[in-house]
């Protein structure tokens, strides 16, 4: 590649980034919030991360089993999360409490 073509390409690249402001909208980056490995991780991932990042979950702080259970139920009742069975509620609650719990049942 000649140095001229190189400079033209660089200029082209620069101008696209310059114009790529609010006129063409934005792209929200993906940020990874790794989940702790354990029983129920995949089930929890499927049910919670469908709607929001796992960051939204773990930034509630370490919480009691009752807290996590009520959060899961809130997601179902208020926010209409399609978690249907009590077994699924148990799985998610147990996973969250096991890995993001404060040791208190209530």
């Amino acid at each position, binding site marked *: 590649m000649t140095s001229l073509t190189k400079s033209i390409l660089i200029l082209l690249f620069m101008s696209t980034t310059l114009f790529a*402001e*609010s006129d*063409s*909208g*934005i*792209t*929200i*980056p*993906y*940020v990874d*919030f790794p989940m702790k490995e354990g029983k129920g991780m995949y089930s929890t991932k499927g049910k919670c991360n*469908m*709607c*929001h*990042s796992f*960051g*939204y979950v773990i*930034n*509630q*702080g*370490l*919480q*009691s089993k*009752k*807290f996590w259970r*009520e*959060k899961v*139920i*809130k997601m*179902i*009742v*208020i*926010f*209409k*999360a*399609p978690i249907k069975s*009590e077994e699924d509620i148990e799985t998610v609650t147990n996973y969250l409490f096991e890995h993001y719990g*404060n040791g*208190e049942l*209530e």
Partner: protein
Amino acid sequence: MERRDFFKKAIAVAGSAAIGGTAAEAGETVHPVDNRKVSDIAFPQKRPLITYSDRPPLLETPREVFTSALTPNDLFFVRWHMPMIPTYINPRTFFININGLVENEIKISLEELKTAFEQVELTAVLQCGGNSRTAFKPTASGIQWGVGAMGCARWKGVRLKDVLKKAGLKNEAAWISFNGEDKAVYNETANFVRELKLEDLNDDIILAYEMNGEELPYLNGYPLRLIIPGLYSDSWIKMISNITVTKEKQKLHFMDHAYRVPDNECECETPENLVQKTKPIEEMNVNSIIGYPSTGSKVRNASDLIVRGVAFDGGHGIKKVQISIDGGKIWEDARLDDGTQGRYAYRSFTYTFKPKKSGKLTIMCKATNEKGEEQPFAKDIKWNHGGYKYNGIDEVTIEVV
């Protein structure tokens, strides 16, 4: 248990205001978590911020930014409720709809807002009701913010009152609800809708299209957001596209259950005895934050140190900010800026002194407003289940070398 019974019970639990908190005993309120690192990933139109979530974006401003009276747009905190945010809005085809109990249901374009209405500007603090939530023990429900879920900007737009007047309010109009363009993943999920009592409408409530002289960043609500100076930001709807006027208050989760505190004098409760009667968080408590130095800073002994920070309240105005370097026994007045940005804005302050001996030194700041309300010590702030309205005396601990 029958499935139906189970869900009935579930609704009873989720429907009560008593969500969150644990049965552990309320502990002493502490200083919020400090000095969290910014992320290496910058969000669009932003510099790297403390990042709690990408979907929805939840970004906190680092303490160091609170040295100036205006918060730059690219450092301004971000909080959305719904994860699906439009990533492109065409300003030429964007409309805000005004409907419900009005004479004429209308759509107003951005262009019309900018040309057919009186343009107003004001400076106001935008602060999440849960700012500094990490102060509360046991851990209160919600995002575990440090001190930076706030910012102050100069907003330009039009009065909500003028827009409503254009549509013409009907006699029985009593409530105004606001909805933005953010959506949940499932259609069945209710939108983040907030309401205002018509009697609380005032000239300072505006629909803003400009922030610090620029278009709003997408993540702060481009192209239009509601500004309600003096109140916590729970009703400052972003990407606002619909206003509905009603006679009755609607049943809305985000009004009836979220952003509420106990309806008692101390606005407090205990985890084992949650207060049933609640009220909206509304007016901001008097507050102040030290922007410089921050905890861990090293400064020279016997050399001028300029402490900088910001103070604000719910609109009564800041009377004084005081600094203590002896654990809160002696308080000396900081110098406040001229206050020309108005009663809803940050008052920036400075306090200059020479540290006298080497070692660790704690610097505290305390604001008092024109009503005489002053910030309490963190330990004297009582718990509430949502971890709202924290305004403890701020402190940083530096090292004098």
